[in-house]
């Protein structure tokens, strides 16, 4: 351990070329926010991190894709005319996997910086708190979108391989991708808020899983009971309880998808209300995140 040597000229050591000033470009806040976005997106899949942090996301990605591969294989072999499930219902069917991904990777993205107090290193640079929150939110949304989109594209490729109708499959997968983007943003906002308020990573993971699974279960139970009672209105509205059925409701209304929940949003106002609720959820989460980061001090 030695301190850097004296300025050049006073030493014979060849390797010591002394301190050089940097006079290259200093790119603006857009570049910095973009870099943080890419860094966080890569981090969500463990790229550029230790092998241990790659295991979870890549395993979950595999678990997401395998059913799609099986479906495709079966469809190709049996020469089916149609995929056995809707593109739009794929995410809902595999919601446990998606939930675990949100739970595992949201804390990785935000709690990590909070817990090890790396945040001051960001905020003492030309990066605003707003840009930080936006980059993190976009990165998590993009990661989730990737997780949801890959199996959809596998299904689509399989459908084309099995020579299913091109036009209807293209339209369906495009709509499903839009739905996936919406679900990704909703879940990312939700996951990041829970994670940002629980700096301990383990707790964050547990909190996100618990909240998402409990909400999904509650929504399913309420819908089930209400359907049994023949009350389709209550069953429809119950979809608001869980982010998954909430986004599903928006898909049904805006994209003409078939509902994967037990009951679609009721009446004429159901769809718009679900869409408004989804928008409000994202806005509220964004607001909470901003509030959380305004409170983060430098020391």
């Amino acid at each position, binding site marked *: 351990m030695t301190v850097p040597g004296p300025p050049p000229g006073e030493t014979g050591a060849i390797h010591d070329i002394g301190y050089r000033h940097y006079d290259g470009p*200093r790119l*603006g806040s857009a570049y*910095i926010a973009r*870099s943080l976005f890419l860094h966080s997106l890569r981090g969500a899949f463990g790229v550029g991190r*230790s092998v241990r942090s790659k295991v979870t996301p890549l395993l979950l990605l595999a678990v997401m894709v395998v059913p799609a591969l099986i479906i495709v294989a079966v469809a190709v072999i049996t020469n089916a005319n149609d995929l056995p499930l809707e593109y739009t219902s794929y995410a809902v069917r595999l919601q446990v996997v998606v939930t675990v991904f949100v739970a595992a990777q949201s804390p990785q993205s935000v709690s990590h910086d909070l817990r*090890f107090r790396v945040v*001051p290193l960001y905020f003492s*640079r030309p990066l605003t708190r707003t840009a930080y929150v936006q980059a993190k939110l976009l990165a998590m949304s993009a990661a989730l979108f990737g997780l949801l989109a890959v199996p959809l594209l596998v299904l689509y490729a399989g459908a084309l391989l099995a020579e299913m109708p091109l036009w209807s499959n293209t339209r369906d997968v495009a709509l499903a991708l839009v739905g996936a983007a919406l679900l990704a943003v909703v879940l990312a906002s939700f996951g990041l808020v829970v994670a940002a308020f629980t700096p301990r990573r383990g707790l964050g993971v547990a909190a996100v899983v618990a909240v998402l699974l409990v909400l999904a279960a509650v929504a399913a139970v309420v819908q089930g009971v209400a359907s049994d009672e023949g009350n389709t209105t209550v069953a429809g509205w119950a979809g608001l309880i869980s982010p998954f059925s909430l986004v599903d409701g928006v898909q049904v209304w805006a994209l003409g998808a078939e509902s994967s929940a037990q009951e679609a949003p009721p009446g004429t106002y159901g769809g718009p209300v679900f869409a408004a609720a989804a928008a409000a959820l994202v806005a509220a989460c964004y607001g909470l995140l901003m509030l959380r980061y305004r409170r983060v001090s*430098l*020391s």
Partner: protein
Amino acid sequence: MTLIATRELTHRYRGGVTALTQLTVDVPAGVTGLVGANGAGKSTLIKILLGLLPATSGSATVLDLDVATGGLRIRELVGYMPEHDCLPPDVSATELVVHMARMSGLPMTSARERAADTLRHVGLYEERYRPIGTYSTGMRQRVKLAQSLVHDPRLVLLDEPTNGLDPVGRDDMLALIRTIGTAFGISVLVTSHLMGELERVCDHVVVIDGGRLLRSAPTSEVTAATERLTLEVSERTDEVARRLADAGILVRPAGTALDLELHDEATYDVVRDVVADLGVGLLRMQRGRLHMLDIFRDGADATVGPAGDLRS
């Protein structure tokens, strides 16, 4: 050249705690020590200087940029090393420093080059590829320092960089700080609650206490102005002290003795006259040099002691 200038800078936290009171100080280029006890307002001042905390009143400029409006630009040109631990354990020093260089706006290739150079300059070699979690405290402090320098700032703010280091590590860090200020040509504002260590590396010293400025002067001047005279008399110490104070000499009780500020030879004459006049015995008259540490200790005593009015 003035790098940092504050004018009647005041900051009051929402709970009503006043962290800075009417602080007016100029920090020149070079290595400057900011000294004060914990809670003296050092960290608050740094946050305001980085444009991250709005001042309640007053103003401040850093590199001629107003902290109220030029925060982003300031943070582009200034480096900051936090006092507390701020390093993720699962990435290597190289990865962290490259990332932080990009977060300061450096393109990827420059970020890689600068990170490698900077880590070498702070004395991290092969170990820079290992996860930070495996580093010693000294190495971690070097990583923290490297990330504050990687974008080649014109000024670095180092918050208690010697905290937690053993004596050798402390010496290394202080030497490194001196190198940054001289060989690298980057101005430094370094905080510490220990005056003694800054005395060795700083060109200029700013002492704050309880959010107020106690002193701002070149290190040499501070050291020169600290000639003291310790005086012990046989009786009526209080009366002697009063008479000396009346004669314009700064007197402080120091146990049973008195501590006098020694201006010039005339001080001796005043002491002789007072003692002779009161007819007390002169037991001890000892000349000494007070370290900055002691000045500061006096300041700290004044705030924690029962005589709270000493602060005003």
